[in-house]
């Protein structure tokens, strides 16, 4: 019967899930956090992702990373849409949600810590660019980013370029790229 036939697969999957949690939890959280700017919401999105992995794992074992990021992204966007709707209805500014966490960019730049500066700048990028850059930094190829975000590769190409260009143009004058 089917139940019996499933047994070996399940054992394999159990280990897979364990590995996935270890390998991806923090990366996914970081990604969701960049999208949402709120730790609790980001963790909610990640939690949802792993619950989904238990419930309805991807059909192909390849591309687990892309699958996890896709599920996580969808959940995060649910939250974002929700937050935007709340803003429209009741005036909770989404902006607060996204910027409150990061140090002031000017301050960070003045402190000379380039990494801090870049991270701070990230929060000012449009969510699309922020997301594309984050996924790229997580090691996804344009093709994969396109699949995760539901865009075309050409679109990803432009979005990543814009993101880098924005950072380039905003950089303090003494910083030459």
């Amino acid at each position, binding site marked *: 019967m089917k139940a019996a036939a499933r047994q070996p697969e399940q054992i394999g999957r159990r280990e897979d899930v364990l590995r996935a949690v270890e390998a991806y939890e923090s990366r996914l959280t970081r990604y969701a956090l960049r999208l949402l700017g709120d730790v609790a*919401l980001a963790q909610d999105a*990640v939690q*949802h992702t792993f619950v989904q992995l238990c419930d309805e794992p991807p059909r192909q074992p390849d591309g687990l990373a892309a699958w996890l990021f896709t599920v996580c992204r969808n959940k995060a966007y649910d939250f974002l849409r929700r937050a935007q709707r709340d803003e429209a209805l009741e005036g909770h500014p989404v902006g607060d949600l996204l910027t409150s966490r990061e140090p002031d960019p000017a301050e960070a730049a003045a402190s000379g810590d380039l990494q801090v500066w870049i991270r701070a700048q990230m929060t000012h990028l449009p969510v699309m660019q922020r997301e594309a850059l984050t996924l790229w930094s997580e090691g996804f190829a344009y093709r994969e980013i396109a699949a995760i975000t539901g865009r075309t590769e050409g679109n990803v190409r432009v979005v990543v370029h814009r993101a880098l260009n924005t950072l380039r143009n905003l950089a303090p004058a003494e910083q030459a790229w």
Partner: protein
Amino acid sequence: MNQRLHTPNGDAPRDEEAAALLTAYALHQLGESEAAAVEARLQADPAAQAFVRDTRRLAEMVEEALVGEECPAVSTQLRKQLDEKLAAQENSPVASTARVSRSRWNIVASVAALVVTACLLVALMLPAVQSSREAARLVQARNDLRQLDSATSGQRGAPSEHYATDYVQYAEGDKLDLRSSRQVKLYNGQTAHPATSSSNLAPANEPYASEHREKNPARRFDVEAPKDYRDFDSGGGERDGNALSGGNEQYDEIIEHPFLGSRDYPLSTFSIDVDTASYANVRRFLTGGSLPPPSAVRVEELINYFTYDDPQPQGNSPFSVNMEVAECPWTPGHHLLRIGLQGREIAADKRPHSNLVFLLDVSGSMQAPNKLPLVKQAMGLLIRELTENDMVTIVTYAGSEGVALETTSGDRQAEILKAIDVLNAGGSTHGSAGIKLAYKMARQSFLKQGANRVILCTDGDFNVGVTSDQELVDLITHEAKSGVFLSVLGFGMGNLKDAKMEKLADHGNGMYGYIDTLREARKLLVEQMSGSLVTIAKDVKIQIEFNPAAVVAYRQIGYENRVLAAKDFDDDTKDAGEIGAGHSVTALYEVVLAGHENDARASEGPLKYQTRGAEPGRNTNPAEETTLTKAAASGELLTVKLRFKEPLGDRSELIEFPLKEEPKRFGAASENLRFASAVASFGMLLRGSEYRGGATMSAVSEIAGAALGSDPSGYRAEFVDLVRRAQQLGK
């Protein structure tokens, strides 16, 4: 820095595209041929070379900065939640093969900070997941089975088994579809295809006497559930019809009522339900751009979200009863029966004195803008309506419970609002302690002649103290004996424990509403304040006896978790739903009207339209078992019996209304019936119900649009808008 001025990064789209190509090249994202083309160009373009070089440097910095960013601490909460999910499933009786001791988890949980341990634990728990997903359906079916067994116990062996077996099969997805649609066809076929139906009908009870009874029960779950619902949050993915939760949101699976023959099952008994949470929740999904999970759609709550302009009751009765029969819009040949209860309205200034204890969840999970901040706004709205006749107490709970506002007169608004204003979310959720404290406060200020109510505002995520549904239900059941009513207001998303909150409200003699917007808060707390706060009758039970001479078969739409055993109707110790001032409750049945049927089966209680024959055995000739009474020839379709108690009473009153009415054409039916039918249809479509018949979202929209009535608050118009959204999402 100045190099960038020489690089092709101008505003014109074509320039940007060219620059984006260079960036892609710099990041090694191009295929061979494109890369070769770019390299050829670079040879002759020093500015572009510089751009590529700079981009690589910049990209390197960005990558370092992004990957190097410290992650938030690994969440022990995640592991805990996963564990809870698994433990809940693993605790179910059918999943015993994959059981992991819960006590073992409790020990481990105390050191859950040790991530490695937690990881291992997750691994241990996982085998339960697969089997228990399927098992969860069986659990639900078995619960219903138990309920139905008690409904039919002692009376007859065969019929209860039949019904029960049917019910279990009802949970089986594909196989079930086959079966139930066969039943429907059977009744249809009675008139339309006599040749086929006669053989089916030969042993009169065959539709219920399932051949599956003989089968090995284990085989039932060979069948994959139908995958006909788009995953509501993972884009193109599919969603099992039997998945019980959306993300971390938890919903109990709903198993729709089947068609029942009124010879065999003349009595339909249920508790009323004035909850409306499901509608607001469905609206949240649709306006958020996704279809709700089927189990989040409780059709009766959608229908009861709306007010229907039924007449006010006459005399002393707490409600009027209104019935109507008209053609069923989604299945030709069937009819719809609407039973509407309209509760007596009490003007705001006639409202009895009230003793309100707000029990607010201020745990960490309530931080989101649509949770505690919305709770505070919602309370603000209600507080402004209160007077010196009201008393307000605020109890909060997070890691520990506390009194945020001692009992205060309702006219000292500034004081109350200030206490609300300073509330902040943080910490874990010790719900049970808060519940105990809130009831204690309510008892201390108990008004004998007034409305005493605890208003719980939460996302339902109780993770400390008593956390299991059953224990919480027991706690609430115990506390409710004090005469204090409970309102449960659900807030937030992503973590919503829908099933738990509904159960709490049911057992606490109360209502459950879901507040997603300030507008919904206004509807529940201000517009319907007297209804939400003042109960005019409790333990309201409805029992319909169908006249088999007039109604061949019936199917109740919705109310799946409100079924009562027939014998519980007269049992005053059995809890049922409450009705508030001005509330209306609508029940719909899809019925098959016909002449005479040759099957018969006994049922509960003394029957008006037939007398019970000898205790029917499984294989006796059904024709000998029962005979119709004289009343069956009366032309009455059915009799509605209602039982209810005064808000503080212990003994129920019984009222009966026979229905003798020529069915109307659908177009000639009241706006009430037509609108309710549209909402029911909408719910069945969202549920992917096999009984949706020929319904479509556009038909729903058309019917509802033509039955808006006066719609003073615009709720019906909003419904039509939601239907359109659902239509677009469904494409």
